[in-house]
């Protein structure tokens, strides 16, 4: 046996002894379905925008009945986005011990470029709310990489402990938060999630508690696994938002800025927080 082969033998032996996590196939199927559904939503949204553009152009050219009122940009607070997603006020239905405003000094926060600001230090005592990296994609998708994999949502009793992750967006560049997108385990049934979009300007929230998810946001969350015997190894939370949810405006275009946050609350008190970046906005470019 040559030494080259000996090296390769050891390498293959090491490879063969790596113990893969036991991940239910159903998890991969569910993630795949989500992605397909989201992609269809993007296509449908694009077509709808195109049609709306054509209709708008036609109406401008042909004129219109002055007495016909356009649809409001923000539906009334009683509007319903879907059968199960609801618009409500006040803007943030409180999680246990919710601490109110995330940051009080938003106006003074500088804006960082994405490249310098994406990495956040290890600065939270609880690893699964310690955000280490954040990404924003034009799709639009936000991705939060945590220090440690979060516990299964089904293992958390929402009356005792709630974890929450999200992003706060400044749509118009004035360094004041305009909307918030979040996901938490603050749902009546352990294992379910509450997802929501809050329009901080209008004071409206569109939320979904428990499945079916997809509106107002879709997500991949490593705490979602169904099998309690399986330990998740993933540390990445992905939030997908099409930006067209009736009742909660949230523009995410170029020029917008955002920061990510995470919080864990025990019995509604003593929340442990993390912000990424710690004191700045990240510009979406």
């Amino acid at each position, binding site marked *: 046996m040559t030494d080259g082969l000996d*090296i390769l033998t050891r390498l293959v032996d*090491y490879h063969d002894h790596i113990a893969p996590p036991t991940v239910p196939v159903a998890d991969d*199927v569910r993630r*795949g379905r989500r992605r397909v559904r989201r992609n269809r939503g993007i296509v449908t949204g694009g077509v709808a925008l195109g049609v709306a553009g054509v209709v708008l152009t036609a109406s401008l050219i042909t004129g219109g009945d002055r007495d016909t009122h356009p649809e409001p940009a923000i539906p009334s607070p009683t509007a319903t986005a879907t059968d199960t997603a609801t618009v409500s006020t006040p803007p943030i239905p409180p999680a246990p011990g919710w601490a109110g405003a995330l940051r009080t000094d938003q106006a003074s926060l500088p804006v960082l470029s994405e490249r310098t600001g*994406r990495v956040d230090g290890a600065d939270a005592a609880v690893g699964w709310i310690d955000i280490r990296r954040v990404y924003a994609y034009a799709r639009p998708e936000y991705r939060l990489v945590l220090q440690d994999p979060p516990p299964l949502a089904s293992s958390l009793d929402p009356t005792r402990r709630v974890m929450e992750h999200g992003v706060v967006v400044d749509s118009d560049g004035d360094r004041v938060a305009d909307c918030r997108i979040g996901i938490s385990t603050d749902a009546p049934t352990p294992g379910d999630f509450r997802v929501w979009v809050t329009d901080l300007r209008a004071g409206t929230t569109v939320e979904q508690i428990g499945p079916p998810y997809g509106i107002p946001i879709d997500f991949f969350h490593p705490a979602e696994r169904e099998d309690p015997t399986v330990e998740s190894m993933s540390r990445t939370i992905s939030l997908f938002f099409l930006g067209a949810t009736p009742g909660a405006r949230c523009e995410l275009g170029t020029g917008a800025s955002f920061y990510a946050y995470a919080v864990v609350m025990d019995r509604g008190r003593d929340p442990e927080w993390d912000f990424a970046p710690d004191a700045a906005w990240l510009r979406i470019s």
Partner: protein
Amino acid sequence: MTDEAAFSAYVAARRPQLFRTACLLCGDPHRAEDVVQDALVRLYGAWDRVAKIDNIDGYVRRIVVNADYSDRRRPWRRESATEPRDVPLDPGFPVEDADTIRAALRALPPGQRRVIVLRHIWNLTIEETAAELGISTGTVKSQSADALATLRKSLAPAFGTALGKEGDR
């Protein structure tokens, strides 16, 4: 068999291997799991198309390799925010040996690591490896040789002097 059933069967059969490969490429089990999840999500979306071709493995393998590759190309991801975690191992495999091999792999440039994984773990030919990575066969050979030389140098102190000789190319 329905499309979803076929996808499930494929995932059940291939996921462990994909994870192991991703571990070798990334050196971190958490990132490896992310890469595999991402690859399988993409595979699900393309299953109708991919299931009609013979080489599903090749398609997925390319996604995994590219996911790791594109991760590294993005400037902000070159920063290492956390220390890589220990790769989980079957009982009985010496932890010290695993640490040594993992460190040696991490010391390889990403291109050489990809060549080693494709050539010697997935057992692709030189031509297949070159086609997969979009490089010439000569580059595959030279990167393979350089990688083996580096591995030999890194592993020799732990695994004995026999590895110190020049050899296989």
